[in-house]
């Protein structure tokens, strides 16, 4: 059986086609998603198949779209709202956090909000300050939300399918540079379980906790370091909330060392959260201080070499790993 390869954008598109076919309550809303199939073609072909009531080119009003998604979810639909660029989530934080995330709890557990908010994280291509942010840390800090960031086409299709079927509000962030990356994707229906990390590379020396684009930085660093005899264990978290602390903890207990990679800003980022969780979970197994490899605490600049300077690079990860393996003076 030859393995079929798709881009991540195609994989996501298949997930949407599959779920819209399967469940008439699934519908998609967003800017420029119907007629042209979205700027990144993730919603391509849906309008022709499912019509304008289920595939909606919405007016530019992100908060309204998210709020409408919540309302439709409350009456039993499974809306999927696309943010053209993930930064625009800033406009929707009230509908997302004060509404989607809390409605179930505030109702005493009586209602469910099966709602997916997808968006493209667009750093790395010069889109500059207002189009390059990745804010997963905010969502992790909003009880009631599920947060997913896939790194491969396979995971993307399976996780988006799982997200749509999940009865909770899900924020699903797609790194734009990954849309065109290819990988094997089975045809038809499958899910990748939410809350389960995936070990993308086994190793014995240092655990790398990562997700989305960070996984690819880690894989590249892993190849480089293997040449020096250093074996990374790469744990692709895939979902940030819930976090698969078990898999990550087991890996850290094995290697005794942890590097966390995140493209989010450093202060208050997901990397900090993961360090704190591992401190709770596996402190005594740590042979050295966990290290965070993150974006710097700046807005994202436009010029190429500036953007590169503030975003985490493979070299930063390599340096972090080799730094923690050096014998510490006096210990």
């Amino acid at each position, binding site marked *: 059986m030859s393995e079929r390869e798709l881009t991540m954008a195609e994989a996501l598109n298949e997930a949407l086609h599959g779920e819209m076919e399967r469940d008439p309550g699934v519908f998609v809303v967003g800017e420029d998603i119907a007629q042209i199939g979205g700027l990144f073609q993730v919603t391509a072909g849906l309008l022709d198949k499912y019509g304008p009531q289920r595939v909606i080119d919405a007016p530019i009003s992100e908060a309204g779209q998210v709020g409408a998604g919540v309302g439709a979810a409350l009456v039993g639909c499974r809306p999927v709202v696309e943010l053209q660029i993930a930064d625009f989530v800033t406009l929707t934080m009230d509908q997302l956090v004060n*509404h989607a995330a809390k409605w179930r709890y505030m109702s005493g557990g009586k209602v469910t909000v099966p709602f997916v908010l997808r968006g493209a994280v667009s750093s790395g291509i010069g889109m500059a300050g207002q189009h390059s942010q990745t804010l997963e840390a905010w969502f992790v800090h909003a009880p009631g939300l599920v947060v997913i960031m896939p790194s491969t086409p396979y995971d993307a299709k399976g996780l988006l399918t799982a997200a749509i079927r999940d009865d909770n509000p899900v924020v699903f962030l797609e790194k734009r540079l990954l849309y065109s990356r290819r990988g094997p994707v089975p045809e038809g229906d499958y899910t990748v379980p939410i809350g389960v990390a995936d070990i993308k590379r086994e190793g014995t020396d240092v655990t790398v906790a990562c997700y989305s684009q960070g996984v690819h930085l880690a894989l590249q660093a892993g190849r480089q370091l293997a040449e020096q005899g250093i074996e990374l264990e790469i744990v692709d978290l895939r979902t940030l909330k819930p976090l698969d602390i078990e898999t990550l903890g087991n890996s850290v207990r094995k290697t005794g060392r942890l590097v966390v990679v995140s493209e989010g800003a450093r202060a208050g980022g997901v990397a900090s959260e993961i360090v704190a969780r591992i401190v709770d979970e596996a402190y005594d197994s740590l042979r050295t201080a966990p290290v965070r490899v993150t974006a710097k605490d700046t807005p994202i600049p436009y010029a190429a070499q500036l953007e590169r300077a503030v975003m985490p690079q493979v070299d930063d990860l390599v340096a972090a790993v080799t730094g923690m393996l050096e014998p510490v003076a006096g210990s």
Partner: protein
Amino acid sequence: MTSASVVGAATLEELLLRMWRIRAFEIRAMELFEEKLIRGSVHPYIGMEAIAVGVCAALRPDDFITSTHRGHGHCVAKGLDLRRMMAEIIGREDGYCRGRGGSMHITAIEQGMLGADAIVAGSSALAVGAAHGLRLQGRDSVVVCFFGDGAANQGILHEACNLAAVLSAQVIFVCENNEWAISTPASASTRIANIAIRAEGYGFPGVVADGNDVEEMRAVTEAALVRARAGDGPTLIEAKSYRITAHSAATKVDLRPAEELDAWRARDPILQLSRKLVESGVDEARIGEIEAQARADVADAVEFALASPRPDPGAATEDVYAPADWNVLERLS
């Protein structure tokens, strides 16, 4: 008591009873707040009863509403159980939200109440999405979105109105213009006399109605419902009214001029409807009975609520997430 039926053409006496239930509920709620049995806040609907009762009298049971921080009146008018409402606002297990939500968050989807919302204007987009969802399900149920004059200036309302217009969503926007938003008069928060005119900017009808006249409220709602169910899209109804009480039970400074308050007190919707009923031949005593009935219903609700158990603190972390495969305790970070 059993929850009020909201089906069919209720008689004026029935409408009066519902209005009195709201008022009696709010009076007791304010007292319970003073007695510290209710925490947080209570925003009484007193003086505005004709709006919710008139609008909801036109609805079918399978129609929906969204509500606000000042939501008790909408709940009662939609037929929610006073007992479970009262239990909620004093924070007991038998409350609609098991004590999680409190006064500003009563939700009862099974009765068409999508939820009260303490974010001013926050539920407007929810209403639009719910309406669209109902349409997809092939239902002609309509969603009514209540909001205040103060809420009219929030961005989300603009987005919701425009989206509703574009989708021809089966929504009715009901602006409860009670002239004030806490200490800010509507005249200071906009430069226009009638919020209803904003509907033109979305391409659907805007209607000004007397919010203290329950029959007028029912009638304008009926017209809007016909439009909505026919797929012709939303209507904005601006109900001119007034809150006779202060903004909330916790309000310390109230700027409303005495004359203004007096003028509106004279137009009290309950007073007006009672007078009308008497003029049409109903016995004064019957009016008294209706009030007594409402007060008795509320007393019963308070008794029920106070007897209801307090929620178990150990369950405080439940229900953040809906059940799911991944949702086993140890995976939850």
